[in-house]
């Protein structure tokens, strides 16, 4: 029973009702907390987690209708399952509760069998919803998940100004051969943890992982004030973290990891592509191709971070860099000027 036990908040101003409902819910094996009016109920909901709210309508200070309205307006609490338990008169009041988002309405005194069925159904729905959300978060960034939950899923994109960052591990194939598959998975997991930290801490989101490479967006799905600066700062932090990781690896005689990073800035179209059944959040546009080319070019140029002219201009001299002149990339009609970010820390050892 213990693992099935959920936290239920009962909001009712009448002591007899509170006692009776709390007894009924406890008999079903759940833990109960009590609130004497709507205001106290909202305070409790905002400060601790609950799985379900049993809500009375007629209450002093803040009544049940107002509680439903406030829950609906609160992004953190809008999905809290609510069962209204009341002896309020009139069908219009019941309809009003349902319209305000209540999952169900039970007349008082509440029948124990009905209560059990309704609570069970509400908790099961919540469990499935939580599971679904956790699943979604595992495959897309939490920003994309929130965007999807709030605005709904629709194929198609919108044009935004963003910076795109590509990175991958140099000589990864040789590394896999020397370390074996299990060890490589461990290595990749550590590597990705570090990279996600660096990117996330500068407001970027990783939206693609391919083997040892990744693509991150700065400025989508949420706008960012200085996307170019954030992307380059994230790149520098990635190098710094790899430097620290290599330090640990060298202590156990493991070869150092080396990564290359390319950053390009400009207008992209970001959104969901794919089919109604299977889609991905991504970003399409010239900066995406250019960032990928720049990342590949780090091998040729022998430097860790390469950026395009738009990123360089946006940085406005805030980061030391040097022009590498114009380079012709595959798929680009004209040669483009590229810049190497001067990396101070010894991230490029080995």
């Amino acid at each position, binding site marked *: 029973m213990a693992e099935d036990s959920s936290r239920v908040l009962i909001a009712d*101003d*009448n*002591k*007899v*009702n509170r*006692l*009776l409902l709390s*007894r*009924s819910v406890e*008999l079903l094996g759940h833990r109960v907390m009590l609130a004497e009016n709507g205001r106290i109920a909202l305070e409790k909901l905002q400060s601790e987690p609950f799985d379900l709210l049993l809500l009375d309508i*007629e209450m*002093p200070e803040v009544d049940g209708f107002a509680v439903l309205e406030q829950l609906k307006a609160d992004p953190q609490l809008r999905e809290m399952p609510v069962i209204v338990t009341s*002896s*309020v*008169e009139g069908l219009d009041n019941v309809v009003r509760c349902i319209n305000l988002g209540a999952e169900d309405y039970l007349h*008082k*005194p509440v029948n*124990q069998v009905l209560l059990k069925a309704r609570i069970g159904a509400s908790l099961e729905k919540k469990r499935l919803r939580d599971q679904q959300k956790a699943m979604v978060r595992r495959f897309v960034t939490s920003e994309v998940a929130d965007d999807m939950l709030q605005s709904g899923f629709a194929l198609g994109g919108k044009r935004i100004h963003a910076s795109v960052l590509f990175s991958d591990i140099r000589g990864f194939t040789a590394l896999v051969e020397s370390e074996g598959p299990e060890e490589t998975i461990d290595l990749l997991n550590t590597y990705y943890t570090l990279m996600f930290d660096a990117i996330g801490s500068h407001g970027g989101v990783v939206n693609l992982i391919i083997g040892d490479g990744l693509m991150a967006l700065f400025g989508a799905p949420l706008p960012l004030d200085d996307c170019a600066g954030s992307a380059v700062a994230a790149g520098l932090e990635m190098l710094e973290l790899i430097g620290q990781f290599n330090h640990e690896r060298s202590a156990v005689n493991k070869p150092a990891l080396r990564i290359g990073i390319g950053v390009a800035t400009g207008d992209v179209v970001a959104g969901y592509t794919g089919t109604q059944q299977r889609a991905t959040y991504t970003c399409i546009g010239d900066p995406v191709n250019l960032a990928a080319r720049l990342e590949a070019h780090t091998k040729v140029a022998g430097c860790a971070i390469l950026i395009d002219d738009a990123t360089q201009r946006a940085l406005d001299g805030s980061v030391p860099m040097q022009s590498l002149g114009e380079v012709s990339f595959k798929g680009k009609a004209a040669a483009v000027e590229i810049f190497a970010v001067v990396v101070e820390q010894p991230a490029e050892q080995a």
Partner: protein
Amino acid sequence: MDESVIDRAVYAELRATTGAEFVAELVDTFVEEGPGMLAELRAARAEGNAERFRRAAHSLKSNGRTFGAVKLTALAREFELKGLDADSTRDVAGLAALEAEYARAAAELKALRNG
């Protein structure tokens, strides 16, 4: 005992689903809280506060229903639906009847609780 005061079937079901010991506690709570609810109703009438009057009547109705106090429930519900009467003497007379019915219900619930 007058079976028209408390519906035995409702009371028996309450006891069966929540336990005799718990029902005894619930009756005690109702007997403790009841006078306060009646006083609230009187105060709301004196003040002419319709919202407060309706809410207090609603609370009494709800508790009456829980215990199967049929007449008490009906009288309280009437107040809840009708609200304050333009002629306050009619409400005062109604309140006296409600209080008398509450006293009967409380006495009978106490007897059932011990029986």
